[in-house]
């Protein structure tokens, strides 16, 4: 009797989930897991254009790009959002994009518009930086390191305190890990960066596979209360610590090191996928993402900075988040040519 009841319930659930829905025309956006947006922003676009938006999330940036590349003959979406400058050249080489130049790009600073070939549109950026535990440095009377080279000093080594002070992510499995590796390449050059990593290794550094572990297990200022007072994370993480505190905070327990070349700037782009049947609507959506409403929504949703200079930042960002003034920059074409080799060489040095 009971089994029959369960079957009936399941059958009913099946039916309801398969029920056809009458709907307006749709626009499909493929994106990565970290994409977030406010409900009313989506609604605004939908009502303005009498269209309904469908989002497909496909894992991290690499997975998403693979999905777009593997399905380029029968594209699953009209717009792809979330390719960043570490993956950009590869995406362009695979010819998955339909060129489009949004009129709203006039509101975007020039340095975001380099090397794009008119294929993709910059939407937001964020800096991958070392975050530090403020309290640790105060209570240990330790100065904050100002450059990457400072990290090689003995006072930031494990011999001084018994455990390494810095935790970094594996660039082969983590995108902030890769970004930090790129920052060191920008700072020390292709000839010198491995030397820096060898020095870092002998001074003491912890390598873990992903951001979750680095931040929540190893970092001392997070809920995990780990052993390392420095972690590779984002320049906006200190603001997130305040916004997502479990009881109200007036000051962030963490801050970022914002020296020359200590941060790597990740820029995320949106592009129209070749083969779309909704070209005009897709262009409208790209314009919408560049426009002030979406741009002002994204900081608190994704903890990234808008590229549109007319967008104002939320007060929490003004107060607690810091953008790097001199972030490390590498040519996307060089990144795409060398990234595999860099990761391989890094792995041989750090994880023999």
């Amino acid at each position: 009797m009971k089994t029959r009841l369960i079957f009936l319930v399941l059958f009913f659930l099946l039916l309801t989930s398969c029920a056809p829905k009458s709907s307006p025309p749709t626009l499909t956006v493929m994106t990565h897991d970290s994409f977030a947006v406010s409900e009313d922003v989506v609604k605004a676009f939908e009502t303005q254009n009498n269209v309904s938006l469908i989002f497909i999330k496909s894992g991290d940036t690499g997975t998403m790009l693979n999905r777009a590349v593997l399905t380029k003959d029968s594209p699953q979406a009209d717009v792809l959002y979330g390719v960043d400058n570490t993956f950009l050249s590869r995406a362009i080489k695979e010819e998955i994009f339909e060129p489009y130049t949004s009129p709203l790009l006039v509101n975007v600073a020039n340095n975001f518009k380099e090397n794009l070939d008119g294929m993709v549109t910059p939407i937001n950026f964020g800096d991958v930086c070392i975050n530090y535990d403020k309290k640790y440095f105060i209570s240990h009377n330790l100065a904050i390191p100002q450059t990457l080279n400072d990290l090689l000093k003995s006072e930031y080594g494990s011999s001084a305190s018994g455990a390494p002070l810095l935790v970094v992510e594996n660039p082969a499995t983590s995108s902030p890990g890769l970004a930090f590796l790129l920052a060191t390449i920008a700072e020390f050059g292709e000839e010198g960066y491995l030397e820096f990593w060898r020095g870092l290794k002998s001074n003491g550094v912890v390598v873990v596979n992903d951001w979750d572990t680095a931040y929540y297990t190893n970092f001392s200022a997070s809920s995990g209360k780990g052993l390392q007072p420095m972690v590779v994370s984002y320049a906006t993480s200190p603001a997130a610590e305040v916004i997502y505190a479990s009881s109200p905070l007036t000051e962030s327990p963490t801050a970022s090191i914002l020296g020359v070349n200590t941060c790597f700037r990740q820029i995320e782009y949106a592009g129209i996928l070749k083969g779309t049947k909704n070209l005009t609507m897709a262009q409208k959506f790209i314009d919408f993402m560049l426009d002030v409403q979406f741009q002002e929504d994204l900081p608190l949703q994704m903890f990234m900075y808008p590229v549109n200079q007319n967008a104002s930042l939320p007060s929490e960002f003004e107060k607690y988040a810091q953008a790097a003034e001199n972030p490390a920059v590498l040519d996307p074409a060089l990144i795409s040519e060398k990234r595999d080799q860099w990761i391989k060489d890094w792995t041989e040095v750090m994880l023999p």
Partner: protein
Amino acid sequence: MDQGLDRGDVALSRFAVGEPKLKDSGMALWLFPLLFLLVFFFLPMASIMAVMFSRADSIDLGQIWRPLGFTVGQAVLSTLLTLVTGLPAAFVFSRFHFPGKSFMRTLTMLPFILPTVVTAAGFNALLGPRGWINLALMDLLETSIPPVTFLNTFTAILVAHIFYNIAIVIRVVGSAWAQLDPRLEQSAQVLGASPSRSFIEVTLPLLKRPILASALLVFLFDFTSFGVVLMLGGPSFATLEVSIYTQALSLLNLRMAGILTLLQLACTIGITIFYSKVSSNQSIPLFPRLQGEGTQLPRTWMQKVIVLIVMLFLFLLQVLPLGALAARSIARMEADRGERGDVQAGVTLDFYQELFINRQQSYFYVPPVRAMINSLFYAGVTMVISTMAGTMLAYAFVRKPAIKRWLDALIMLPFGASAVTLGLGFIVTFNRPPIEAGTFPLLVPIAHSLIAMPFVMRTVQPAISSIPESLRESAAVLGASPQKVWWHVEMPIIRRALIAGAIFSFTISLGEFGATSFISSPKNPTLPIAIYRYLSQPGAMNYGQAMAMATILIIVCGVSVWLLEKLQSEKRAGV
């Protein structure tokens, strides 16, 4: 059930009645599962392989040996350790009854469902640098350096594998052990054999097949281990599956990923064929026993100690990490107050309350109840598909050993295939209506069923082959229709294994993360996906909500497993 068995006992003579009927239905039994596999496994795998090998990515065969060696080594070691720890537990659960037994049985099932992000958090809360154990030891030894290093070690991988897979040994071997006629062992002892001799010479040979079956399942789980190695083992260790992930999704070298995938598949086939060879001599059909027969209260001093040690071990291994995690979901630990190292704690339900609030007005916000319903729906459908298909296969294999020979290894393939590659295969294959990843709601349970089906098959098959043909025949001679024979004679015998399989498939689906993140719709996430979303943003509130959501997942699963087991015992009382 009693009636069925009694009737069976009356007439034991062999008549070949009903044999032709069985042969007719033989093909239908394996055709449906095979079609299912063809469409949802071989088609996507073949498509993605074709794509992978059509690319011009560079190949470095030197990168194969290290992950291959490590994968085999850690899987052998993990499987042995799981057997060594699981067999005593299976013995205790099948031979004794004691207070708290059903509670502990349910608890041992829980780790099975946990996504690795949550398990890692649980072990971190217990054994991490600021875990309870290190905090206590640091206090005791008056040191500021945590004495226990657990995370990112080889030990962590082994312990996590035992933590995850001990339930397989307990359930698969335990259900067979409970089925054994205790009189066999008793007669051996009456005839003068010592308990250890009667165990080695009578019980162990009879349990050979279920032990091998569980060892195979555990081995394949360990062999394809991904999350545990990635998150608990750290960057110094990489299995084939981890290498496939890195090659395909980070280095974007799909050809290399394809080669590694083929290697992993080849190993899976090899292992399965080896297993079939070892276990090919048919098991001895035995008259199945009533549930509860042969169990006793631990009487002697020795028995009490054994039960106590096993339960204590299971408690330490399985309950403590889960408990540590649940404790974190109600503990407030603020990062800004007090000195580094001392943890200011208070009890709070904030994290749970916050789950119900869409504070950032996010378009993708999902209330916990919704995620729970999604998870239960997927798990329910997975259970139905895989239990039906798995049982059909098990019957086909028992009745037609010839089919088993060539189908057996095929059925196990999804189990040992790379989840990353299969996920990409789904994307390449199912990207247009009517079946489209991201919108077709049944794709998630279908993907889960691919892994759960061989599981059910392995669990049920030993039970089916233990049914003596004479039992079925005598019932038929006495006038029972085939349906009646199945319901009243076979069903009661295989029910225990069937429910074990069903519970496994249900929990496999509840905890699955990788495939789900590929193909589910972002507006309808499951509990593991919702947990991961919280864990990928900084902030104490996010971490706390992840722990709260994980605790909800544990409770949902605990209640489900408990209900499923209850279904079994009520049935028994009803007949």
